[in-house]
Structures are given as structure tokens and as C-alpha cells.
């Protein structure tokens, strides 16, 4: 979709694969409205550290836009031109991050966020089309464990999820974790692309190391969080370093700026970890919000075939720069409530992926408050008192 013949100046220091990709699509990028060009260039700049699924999606998006556009696609893309821009719009190509920051602030200032939302939502239909075109049929499975260390509560669990699946009131969860891991390991043996299988835990890792499964454990990342906290503390001593500037600063951080990463994490994983810890200005630093946010980002970016997540008790203090021992007491019952909504959000994010109807989703309470299963063979809104195990539920969903 080349709308202009003059090439724009692109970012000068892109990583090697990103540089090649940008050069390949230079004509397209030069012709796009500035906001769209900047958004795509930011995605391209991350290309070297992307998971395979998101690389494919980005390539598909660029190809889709390069092809002769339908009238509807042309309308959607051109609608971005009507958005109010800050000064120095040419920075969209040379300094896309800075441009988008200025653009976002400008949108709020001129009260045009609704217009932006409408453009972005329309563009979402292009992304949906790209995803559909790329989708390779594969059944997906997500298992969520919650309630570790919590009392059995009188407050019902899974209130948001139950209406979409079957609630198992009498579940024997004693072997559930081992069974879930065994099922996942067996699936991972089929040898799919890297980052297709994930384990995310909020507590001390209990899963054995695996070369086939990408693992993310909250306690293992403490050294990274500590270094990050030191850097942020130092930045905050600078005059006029308000929350927005701290946020901008954190968005610039890369693995090379930090240290303490677990040895089993490769470069792609380390970039992912930095994104997780720095998105939202480090407000995802409680164990429960770390697990929920990581699961969301894994689903969105890696689009895994299987994912096993386990929530754990979190500290009561929500401030990651405050590390005094008196504030580090664990709150398992509060974490159960966090994890309950976290499980629901995980299902919502799972549902956004292609072929969601065939996906198996199971959330199981380790404090004896049952389990809920959503997917093939599971009636919506049903409650069963029949004894069950996780293994049995998986069998029922698979037949």
C-alpha cells in the first residue's frame, strides 16, 4: 500500500533481523500514516526477540498491507490520517517510540482518544484476518492452579467462569499438579516449535527443569527485580522524575541493563522478562499480578499450545521498591481472591486466540474449592457433585 514514493528515514540502530525486515518493507512503511508506521516500526524493532508466533503475525501483517488493498482495508488504513498529530510527525519513522509517546499524550490533550479507539478497533479486523489466515489447527490447553496455602473459603470461587463451563465440586486435587505436568510433558514431546509450551509459577518452583517447556518462576526472578528496583530508585533521585518519566525510562530498559537472569533463560526469554517487569511501570510485581500478566502476555505473544500456571501466596505490600522484612508477610487468602479473577482473565485472553471453541481450559483450587472446566464436552453453567480428578476431566474433554 504505497501512498508516497519518497522513502522516509527509518530508525538507525535496529537489531539485524529487524533491520532486514524494515528494509524489505521500506516502501510500505514510508507510505503509511505516521501513527500506523510508528506502531509497526516499534513491532519491527522487537523482531529479533519475538516468539515465532508473533514473528509470523508481524510478517503476515506486513504482507497483508503490501498486497493490493480492498476498499475496506484502504479505508481503515487511511482513517489513521485523520488523527490529530503532535508536532514533528516525521519522527514517526526515525524515532517511533518517542513519536508514539508524544502522540498518546497529544491525543489525551486534544480529547481525541475515542477517535483513536475507533481507528484501532477497525484495524483490529485486519489483525483478526491475518491471524485467521495464519492459523494452523491445533488444540490448545490451559490449566490454572490457585489457592495454594489458602483456607477453604466460604466465598464461592470461579463465579465468573462457572457460567461458561462445568463446575466440579468434588475434585480430588492431590495428584492434579503432577498429572497436569505429565500431560503437558507428553504433549511437548511431539516436538512443536519453540515456546509452544509454558509453565508459569508464582511460588517456589516445584516443576523439574525442562528443555521442551518454557518456564517462568516468580521467585527465580528476584535478583532481576532487585537490580531493576536499584535502577529505578537511582532514577527517582533525579529532580522532576515523576511517574510518567519513570515509566518512560523503564520502557527503554533491556536485558543488558539488568542482571540476575536464570541461566536457563535465552535472550528471547530475557527480553520477555524485562517486558513483563517493566510494563505498567513495574506495577505487576506482586506474585499474583506477575502470574496473571505473564499468562496474558504469553497467550497474546507466544500463542502457546499448552500452558500451566500456578498462583501462589503474595506479600501484602504492593510496592516493589519497599523490601523491608516487616512488609513481606504472605497473604494466601488475599492471593486466592486475586488468582480467582486472574484465572478468569486468563480464560478471557485465551478466548481471544483463534479456534477458541476447541480450547481446553481448567482451573483447579488447591484449597479444596473444586474446579471448573470450559471446552469440548463441558456444559456451560453445569455443576456436578460426582467425584473427579484432573486426569479424568482431561479425558472427558478429549473424547
Amino acid at each position: 500500500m504505497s501512498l508516497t514514493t519518497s522513502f522516509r528515514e527509518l530508525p538507525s540502530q535496529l537489531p539485524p533481523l529487524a533491520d532486514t525486515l524494515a528494509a524489505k518493507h521500506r516502501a510500505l512503511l514510508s507510505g503509511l500514516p505516521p501513527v500506523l508506521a510508528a506502531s509497526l516500526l516499534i513491532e519491527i524493532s522487537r523482531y529479533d526477540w519475538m516468539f515465532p508466533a508473533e514473528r509470523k503475525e508481524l510478517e503476515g501483517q506486513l504482507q497483508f498491507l503490501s498486497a493490493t488493498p480492498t476498499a475496506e482495508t484502504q479505508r481503515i488504513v487511511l482513517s489513521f490520517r485523520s488523527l490529530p498529530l503532535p508536532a514533528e510527525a516525521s519522527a514517526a519513522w526515525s524515532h517511533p517510540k518517542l513519536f508514539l509517546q508524544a502522540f498518546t499524550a497529544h491525543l489525551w490533550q486534544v480529547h481525541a482518544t475515542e477517535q483513536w479507539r475507533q481507528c484501532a478497533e477497525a484495524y483490529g479486523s485486519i489483525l483478526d484476518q491475518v491471524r485467521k489466515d495464519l492459523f494452523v489447527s491445533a488444540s490448545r490447553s490451559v490449566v490454572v492452579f490457585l489457592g495454594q496455602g489458602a483456607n477453604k473459603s466460604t466465598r464461592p470461587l470461579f463465579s465468573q467462569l462457572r457460567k461458561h463451563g462445568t463446575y466440579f465440586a468434588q475434585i480430588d486435587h492431590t495428584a492434579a499438579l503432577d498429572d497436569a505436568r505429565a500431560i503437558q510433558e507428553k504433549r511437548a514431546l511431539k516436538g512443536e516449535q519453540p515456546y509452544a509450551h509454558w509453565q508459569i509459577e508464582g511460588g517456589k518452583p516445584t516443576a523439574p527443569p525442562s528443555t521442551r517447556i518454557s518456564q517462568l518462576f516468580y521467585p527465580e526472578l528476584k535478583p532481576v527485580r532487585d537490580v531493576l528496583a536499584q535502577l529505578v530508585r537511582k532514577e527517582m533521585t533525579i529532580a522532576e522524575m515523576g511517574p510518567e518519566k519513570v515509566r518512560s525510562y523503564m520502557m527503554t530498559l533491556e536485558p543488558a541493563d539488568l542482571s540476575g537472569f536464570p541461566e536457563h533463560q535465552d535472550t528471547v526469554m530475557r527480553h520477555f522478562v524485562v517486558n513483563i517487569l517493566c510494563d505498567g511501570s513495574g506495577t505487576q510485581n506482586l506474585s499474583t499480578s506477575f502470574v496473571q500478566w505473564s499468562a496474558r502476555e504469553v497467550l497474546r505473544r507466544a500463542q502457546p499450545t499448552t500452558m500451566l500456571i500456578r498462583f501462589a501466596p503474595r506479600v501484602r505490600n504492593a510496592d516493589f521498591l519497599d523490601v523491608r522484612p516487616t512488609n513481606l508477610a504472605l497473604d494466601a487468602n488475599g492471593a486466592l481472591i486475586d488468582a480467582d479473577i486472574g484465572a478468569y482473565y486468563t480464560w478471557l485472553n485465551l478466548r481471544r486466540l483463534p479456534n477458541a471453541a476447541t480450547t481446553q481450559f481448567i482451573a483447579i483450587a488447591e484449597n479444596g474449592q473444586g474446579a471448573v472446566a470450559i471446552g469440548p464436552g463441558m456444559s456451560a453453567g453445569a455443576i456436578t457433585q460426582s467425584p473427579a480428578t484432573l486426569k479424568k476431566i482431561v479425558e472427558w474433554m478429549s473424547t
Partner: protein
Amino acid sequence: MLDVPVNLPLLERATQLAISRRRFLRTLTGAATANLVVASRGSTTMRRSYGSKSIIVTFGGGARDQETFAPEGQQYIPRILTELIPRSTFYTQVINRGILGHYVANAGLATGCYESFNNFASIQPTNPTIFEYYRQDRRRPAEDVWVIAPSNGFSRIGASSHYAYGSSRGATVVLPKQLLSVGDDHRFESLLRDSYEGPASNLISRDPRRDNEMVERLLRLSMTDFKDHARNISSPDELSLYIALHLMRNLAPSLIWITLHDIDIAHAGAFSLYTEAIERTDRICAELVHALDREPEYKDRTNLFILPDFGRDADDDASGNGFQHHRTGDALSRTTWLLAMGPGIRKNTTVDRPVESIDLVPTLAQMLGCEPRFSQGRPLTELL
């Protein structure tokens, strides 16, 4: 989750949200359910008699329907539902079209204009505030108009930079956390967090540019009592409540504006901390109303407004992360509610027409007898 399609234009979505809200309110028990009506001003031109005092409570950390008025949320606001709503006119659809940052949004509530400055900068509102309109037109002294604000960022909300008004006509702004942060006393650190928006564990500290001594002198507060109280509480908003009650008892100002902030802990992504804060806010609102009923200077003489500055992101918006933030600008994050009670204000009444958060100032101004010359809002006719 609300069953409202995400691809509808903002106003249409907001209208559907209002319909949902009305339905939620009708699930209440007892007299409140029986007496709910859709209000309309009708053709009457009779002037009402309002209270001579006004208290405005804003939540500088919005709460969503799901955690308040929706059936699943009612557990968190029992006092607002059973004690306050039966005495109030309740607007189900208050839209904030401005910037969704707490300081700039509260400044917009106070000026009746969508302010456009950087939310994180220490800047006075551009347009005159209700405090200035009231003090100038009614010739009221500084100690008659107070703002109790949650963080350093709010320290300049009391008066605008407008050429015709300004600091000499503004409200006296008290930052309870700043009062507590004197010296090296570390016992109160858990109460002194300035913001929940970022990693900023910046503990609030005294701003040398502020005349804290003047504030303390006007406030006539025993710091010993204040600190004793602070030792027994777990939340900064309880400090604000303490100051509000102190003001009511000792100075009885005509206008008090309180911004509660605990709910914004939602930014940490912990649902339990967020709902705990809503429960606490519900209790604080009820305690304020109990104080209005108790204090002779305020009993039957006070207009009370309670409103969140805006909402939080919807679960079904893929660009957000549900309750955690308010960054998408979606309909749920822009649509909230307003509760008004006092002499001359209809009880047990809901209003479903869309209004805007900037409509507060012209409404208040009419009640207070001042002229909101630069406000862009429109008076809430159902209250006037």
C-alpha cells in the same frame, strides 16, 4: 461482566451501561427498590431550598460497576446501598470525556472544564475552580473552603492560574500525608505512599514550596492526636476522614472537597486489595454521612455529592487488563455515577439520562449562590 458490545460508539455504550446500572439498583431490597423512579424536573419553576454547606467526595481511583452496583459487586458497598442511596438522587450515567488521570480529572471536576495539563505535573488548573467562584462571589475567607487531597500531585488543585481568580481566592489544601511526614518518624511509612500509578514508592514528603505552617495554623489540629490516630489505622484515606471530621467539628467550613485514593491500589493488579479498598471507601462515606447527621452545623444543612472521577477498564477490552488500570479510554472507564443528597434533593431517585462529570460545578454553584463563569458543564436540573 456487562453484556454490552464493545464496538458501539461511546455514548451508545454509555447508555447501555446506564440501563444495566438501573437494573442493578432495582435488585436492591426493601423500600429502595419499591420507590425507585426515573426523575424529571418537569415544568415546575419553584425554587428549592438547598443546604448552606456542601461536601464533595470524589474517588481519585475509580471503581467499576462490577465491584459496586452490579449484583456481584454489591457486597463491597453495603452502606452506600442501604444507607445512602435511599436518601439520594442517583445519576447512573456520568461520563468523563477528559484525560483519565486522577489529578487532572479531579481538577476538571473542580473547574467544570476538561483540563488538559500533564496529569503528573505540579500545575494549577487553567480554569477557575468552584472554590474560587464561591470565595470571590460570596466573599468567603480562606478557612471557609477546604480541599483534603491524597497526594503531592494534588497540592495545587485549590486555585487556578486564571487571571481573574487565582491563589488568593482558592481553597486551603491540606495533604494529610504531608502533615504526618514531619521528621524522621518511620512508623507511618505504610501510610505515606504518594501514588499507585507506577513503581513510585516515593514516600510523600513535605513540599518546601507549600506553606504548611499556615495550613496547620488554620487547621488547628493537635498533631499528637493526629499521630495517635494514625498509629491505629491502615489506610491513608482514613487520615483524610480524620481531617474532614476535625474540620467539621472545629471550623465548620461551608465547602469541603475530599478526594479518596485508596481504591487506586488496583494498579498493583491485586483484586483483593482493590475490593478491600472499595469496602473501606464505602465505610468512610457512611461515616461522613453519620457525621453530617450528628454535627449541628451540618445536620439538615448540607449538600453531599459523592462521585468517582472516572471508572476503570473493562474486562472485555483487549487493550487493557480489566480492573487494574484506566488507560484504554473505553466506555466503562469513562462512565461512572454520582450520588447527591441533602435538603431539597429528591430521595430514592435515579436519573438515567447521560450527564457529564463537568456538570458538577454549575450545579454546585447554583446551590452555593455563585457564578461559574468559565465552566463548560450544564447544571443537573433534577437537583435544582
